[in-house]
């Protein structure tokens, strides 16, 4: 139920993002989803890839500051209110959402959203109780 996400510390200057994507491409790692949170000085690049362990090792070896975190991937109907419904469930049960981002360009018929929450086990339980479709890591990596 949990998906491995790779986070990388990047200075906010030209070429850093490209350095990461180029490195992963060279190593044959495919990026499934990507989000950047940044300030004027630095950014945090978050990635879902097909081979998270390999990506982690490769990036670390090249001297990047990198961490692996667990996130939830939720499939929801691709129509107005889909995301709001899931958010409402989490809010009602007081699950703190740290951040979320949408999954890009998949052939999947539903919309996919990645959630990073404070307590991942609670969140999974809550969403399952409500019959929300949570994707397994393997499903996501293989998309």
């Amino acid at each position, binding site marked *: 139920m949990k998906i491995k*996400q790779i*986070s990388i*510390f*990047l*200075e906010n200057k030209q070429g*850093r993002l490209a350095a990461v994507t180029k490195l992963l491409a060279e190593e044959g790692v495919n990026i499934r989803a990507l989000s950047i*949170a*940044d*300030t004027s*000085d*630095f950014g*945090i690049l*978050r990635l879902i890839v097909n081979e998270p362990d390999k990506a982690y090792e490769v990036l670390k*070896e090249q*001297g*990047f*500051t*990198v*961490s692996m*975190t667990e996130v939830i991937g939720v499939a929801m109907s691709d129509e107005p209110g889909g995301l709001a419904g899931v958010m409402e469930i989490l809010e009602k049960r007081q699950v703190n959402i*740290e*951040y979320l981002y949408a999954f890009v360009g998949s052939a999947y018929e539903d919309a996919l959203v990645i959630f*990073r929450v404070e307590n991942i086990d609670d969140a999974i339980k809550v969403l399952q109780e409500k019959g929300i479709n949570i994707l397994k890591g393997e499903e996501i990596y293989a998309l």
Partner: protein
Amino acid sequence: MNWNEKYETLPREDLKELQLERLKQTIERSFHDVEHYKKVMQDKGMEPGDISSLDDLSKLPFTTKEDLRDNYPYGMFAVHLSEIVRIHSSSGTTGKPTVVGYTRNDLNTWAELMARSLACGGAGREDVIQNSYGYGLFTGGLGVHYGAERLGASVIPTSGGNTKRQIMIMKDYGTTVLTCTPSYALFMAEVMQEMGIDPKTDLKLKSGIFGAEPWSENMRKEIERKLDISAHDIYGLSEIIGPGVAIECEEKRGLHIFEDHFIPEIINPETGETLPIGEVGELVFTSLTKEALPMIRYRTRDISRLIEEECSCGRTHIRMERVSGRSDDMLIIRGVNVFPSQVESVLLDIGETEPHYKLIVDRIGTLDTLEIQVEVSEALFSDEVRRLEQLEEKIRKEIDTVLGISAKITLVEPKTIERSEGKAKRVFDKRKY
């Protein structure tokens, strides 16, 4: 362990008597054999006979690096070149190099002091000492080398650089004692991690003797933890003799100065006034036994403090606190005196940072600005922007408290700050005067 039980534990009264006798001889010889000393003493209307007690030392003029440069290369030597058996010199990056010479007896003294230092730092005959100080004009390499041989240890003269090979040697040859700069020790620890070598299980290292650049208590802890050793601070400078002027014993509360060979003083760097024992100021040394290059009241520019209290190790020699900065590297930012080492302690005290940082001083209009770039280590990294911003804020507040000035904190990617295998360059002053 004491290498020279008699002299290292000499009762202080006897020590002072010995110092006075040797001081008088040094002044006498310097006056007659070195034109410079004769001139500066005569300018003050003094002659050797005016020195009749240790307190009289403070009447004598200081010797500075400038004096050595003005008398470049051999003008300060008290013996003929035929008596000199070794010459070392500084790199001269900030002007003319300073040249120092040694007679056979001087080399003998130096080896004795380095043997004492290594023994004090936990080394003995059975040890394999890997000496990663640079061999060459710099006194670190050869100084440690001959001390290690005097001690009877097995010395591996790896010198600096080629870190992966150094680590291989350390592992294969069973190195037990490492000697190098503290920043190089940390650099080695990083490379070990990359190579998958665990000092706890793969190496026999037990202690390290580190010097030639200022470092902090937290940096010691980090080196001790990462290399699984006991780390000792060693102090020295080529003008005085080289490494082996002072060394930390197992107490690690200050470095014992070998007072049978040197007299330390602390002065106010602004006024030159001698300060009472216990106060912080610039270290000044007078050599007592040097033949080739006697040094009278040499201004080291190093900031320290003397500790008079008895030490539990049994050595009677006075201690100096680890050097906390340089009176000439001191940055003046918005009128405030800042030593890079202060910034380092703040970063280390926060505890979450690898000690890799860079200070950039600039001036916008008439206002000095200080930016501190700090590398984000894995331990420090959070995948949330908010947490990293909190970290920046915490560092900024601490710097503000300790230095009394505000700084811009910038988190940077690891390894973006240049690592050096010798001294690390951490200060970039872009101000134009």
